[in-house]
């Protein structure tokens, strides 16, 4: 299993230790944290919802493809679901390879693919009492950033 979902707090130590491999010369990890703001609004809570059966299949396929494509010694990702607050860890992605370049590239690649293709949705709750489902395809015309910089982790 390369990809998993959890309703409990992610444990980076437990995800990292099985990846240790003497053939690897570099390990790159990305941790996506819940921010206390989004598009200028204060965030109090995030609820993540997944189509769990499909998310596990899609996540697994993505990571297997990246494992082969970047000739990694290992890759692993876990996404939290349920209710999270600022400071919580929402996603953990780790990749290790004989050389650092592949580990960096694969980690970034995996995060981008998971965000774009794994069926998970984010419901944000704001300090003013309002709430909104995050839609990365929506136009945030008041902001000049691309969706990659305006959406969450």
């Amino acid at each position: 299993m390369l990809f998993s979902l959890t309703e409990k707090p992610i444990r980076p130590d437990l995800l990292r230790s099985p990846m240790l491999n003497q053939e690897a010369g570099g390990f790159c990890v990305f941790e996506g944290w819940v921010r206390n703001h989004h598009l200028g609004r204060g965030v109090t809570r995030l609820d993540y919802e997944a189509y769990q059966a499909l998310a596990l299949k899609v996540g697994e396929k993505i990571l297997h493809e990246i494992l082969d494509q970047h000739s990694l010694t290992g890759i692993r990702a876990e996404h939290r679901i349920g209710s999270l607050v600022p400071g919580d860890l929402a996603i953990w992605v780790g990749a290790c390879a004989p050389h650092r370049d592949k580990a960096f590239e694969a980690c970034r690649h995996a995060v981008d693919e998971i965000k774009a293709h794994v069926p998970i949705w984010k419901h944000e709750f704001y300090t003013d009492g309002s709430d909104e489902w995050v839609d990365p395809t929506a136009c945030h015309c008041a902001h000049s950033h691309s969706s990659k910089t305006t959406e969450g982790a």
Partner: protein
Amino acid sequence: MSQVTILYFGRLREDAGTHQEEVNTAASTIADLIRERAQTLDFPYKIQSLRFARNEALCPADESIHNGDTIAFMPPMAGG
């Protein structure tokens, strides 16, 4: 007519008021099915931005549907 199970997620689930429903439909593709459901439900997204799955496999909107299928209507993914 065929009977299918429709799964809704995220904002679609909230707007539909249910996560799952059984429907009898004359639709032959997922695109037909969503046009049929749009007559009674307001979908808050452009159909082109929705993603679909048939029996736990991602598929395009022109995928054929069959009696007993489970079809998922999904908003744009927003994990991470």
